[in-house]
């Protein structure tokens, strides 16, 4: 079976029409994972029993001639920051190395209610902190397009699994770019919906005002199908929006002619690799050719996005990670003398270097005497950044940019310079800060055959326009 030809529709149809069985699909994927994941490292845990039980359910439905639900029989996988009941969930950390959640995250529950088969849990940077998947406590993930390079992060496993045909679609999370950037590095589609579009219930929290769950796929249509399944109000997440979910799939084929597309000059300045620039400019040309109006816009506070992000995100992380104290679950240090010993040594031994660095930063910027200068200031700049987008969206319907200033870098290249690693997020953090949706779609390769990503940003809750443009781009790129 050629797994690379499968998408959500063809997989589901094959099971529905009994051209194959869900069980056979699952076995093929596990065989592929067995053969190739030793090199790539995308998976941390396989949940074979759960997968086979779901596959069996779908096969019975098909045998009885019943219509399968929208993702019926489709093998998927989920970043290990989303809780799966009775299946180990680690957040890529030693601190949760043996944690077995007693409940499912809403996103996973919705996927399974729609018939999807969860194959396993995907590797990621520890607590979703990183841009290269080198910060996993277990092992790094390698880019399937060039295994000497990073897949991007923090959802490196989610991107790599789709790129290497080890799942049809996957879920990842994005706080500063962690869906879009690895999608760009691995040559797949990665979508971050509007903040509050998808419930965060069961998502192991990094930064509560910045975390988003979203899909990875080869095709924009698959991403739209998955988003339609997982989006929507969830009473278990007070920040999930009470706004109806459009049929994103039906929206895809609406014409893009007449849509106004903004090119923000701040995203095409210094530091942008020439090959990435050419590929993105060519893609924008293509959009103009199919009838979009390309309009220059300015997002003047862009240069302040990284410091803003790293203050807000680390502050929220320092608070969210305070729960890892060795008391109720997770790692606990040995040979303890006192309670204080337990807290301090558990956390120092359990957390990796990047996580500790961010906890320290976050604690510092929230501490007495520094709160106003850093955290409060950053929250005000966040308002300015959001206003930049709101003003731009009065003139345009979407903004197109490169996803990342470069293509995938080599493993170890940025490991010793945390600030250099942070600066690589320059084009992605703005959307997280403003809460707007964004997608990365492949738009060419470098001379070294490394994928390049085109990012499309949209208004709050206007995923339909973002997906429509992304779909149009993908169609024209394939026709070429």
């Amino acid at each position: 079976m050629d797994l690379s030809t499968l998408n959500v529709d063809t997989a589901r149809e094959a099971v529905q029409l009994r051209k194959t069985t869900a069980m056979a699909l699952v076995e093929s994927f596990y065989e592929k994972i067995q053969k190739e994941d030793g090199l790539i490292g995308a998976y941390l845990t396989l949940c074979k029993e759960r997968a086979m039980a779901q596959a069996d359910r779908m096969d019975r439905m098909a045998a009885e001639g019943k219509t399968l639900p929208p993702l019926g029989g489709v093998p998927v996988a989920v970043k290990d920051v989303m809780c799966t009941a009775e299946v180990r969930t680690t957040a890529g950390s030693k601190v949760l190395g043996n944690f077995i959640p007693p409940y499912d995250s809403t996103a996973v529950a919705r996927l399974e209610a729609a018939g999807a088969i969860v194959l396993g849990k995907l590797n990621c940077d520890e607590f979703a902190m990183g841009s290269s998947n080198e910060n996993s406590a277990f092992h790094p993930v390698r880019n399937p397009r060039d295994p000497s390079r990073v897949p991007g992060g923090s959802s490196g496993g989610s991107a790599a699994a789709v790129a290497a045909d080890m799942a049809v679609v996957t879920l990842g999370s994005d706080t500063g770019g962690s869906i879009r950037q690895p999608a760009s590095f691995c040559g797949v589609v990665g979508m971050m919906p509007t903040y509050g579009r998808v419930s965060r219930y069961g998502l192991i929290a990094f930064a509560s005002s910045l975390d988003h769950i979203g899909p990875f796929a080869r095709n924009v249509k698959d991403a739209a199908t998955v988003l339609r399944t997982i989006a929507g109000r969830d009473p278990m997440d007070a920040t999930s929006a009470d706004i109806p979910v459009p049929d994103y799939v039906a929206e895809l084929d609406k014409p893009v002619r007449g849509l106004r597309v903004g090119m923000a000059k701040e995203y095409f300045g210094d530091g942008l690799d020439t090959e990435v620039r050419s590929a993105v400019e060519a893609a924008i040309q293509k959009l103009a050719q199919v009838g979009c109006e390309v309009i220059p816009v300015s997002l003047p506070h862009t240069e302040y996005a990284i410091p803003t992000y790293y203050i807000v995100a680390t502050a929220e992380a320092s608070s969210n990670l305070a729960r890892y104290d060795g008391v109720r679950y997770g790692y606990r240090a040995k040979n303890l003398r006192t309670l204080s010993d337990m807290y301090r040594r558990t956390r120092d031994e359990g957390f990796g270097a990047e996580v500790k660095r961010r906890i320290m930063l976050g604690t510092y910027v929230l501490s007495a005497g520094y709160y106003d200068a850093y955290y409060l200031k950053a929250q005000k700049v966040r308002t300015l950044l959001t206003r930049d987008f709101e003003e731009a969206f009065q003139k345009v319907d979407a903004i197109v940019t490169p996803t990342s200033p470069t293509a995938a870098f080599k493993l170890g290249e940025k490991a010793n310079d945390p600030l250099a690693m942070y600066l690589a997020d320059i084009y992605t953090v703005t959307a997280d800060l403003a809460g707007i949706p964004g997608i990365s779609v492949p738009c060419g390769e470098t001379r070294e055959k490394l994928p390049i990503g085109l990012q499309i940003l949209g208004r709050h809750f206007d995923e339909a326009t973002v997906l429509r443009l992304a779909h149009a781009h993908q169609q024209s790129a394939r026709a070429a």
Partner: protein
Amino acid sequence: MSVNEADVRYVADLANLELTEEERAHMVRDLNSILSYMGRLNELNTEDVPPMAQVSERFGVDTAKQGSERFSYASREDVLEGLSTSLPHEKALANAPDADENFFTVPKVIER
């Protein structure tokens, strides 16, 4: 604002992290480098700018309402198990590093 080892010790105490001496040294270097970069936010005048404390506040919320009234859509009746069933006792204890049938067990809390 530059950070020295005493600052790192103080912050590590607040964060409940028992850093080793080597970790402390690296932390001084890393924090200084990152914090000095963050200092550029001071180039911006934000005197009349409200902080963005809630992302959700910008949409779907009735701004005519005040305070927690705005988020009434997110609240529910205070009824036992109105939203979901409580975790059974054994499940709640299942991941504990150390527990008896009733409680999580930890090293002594009060020093004598």
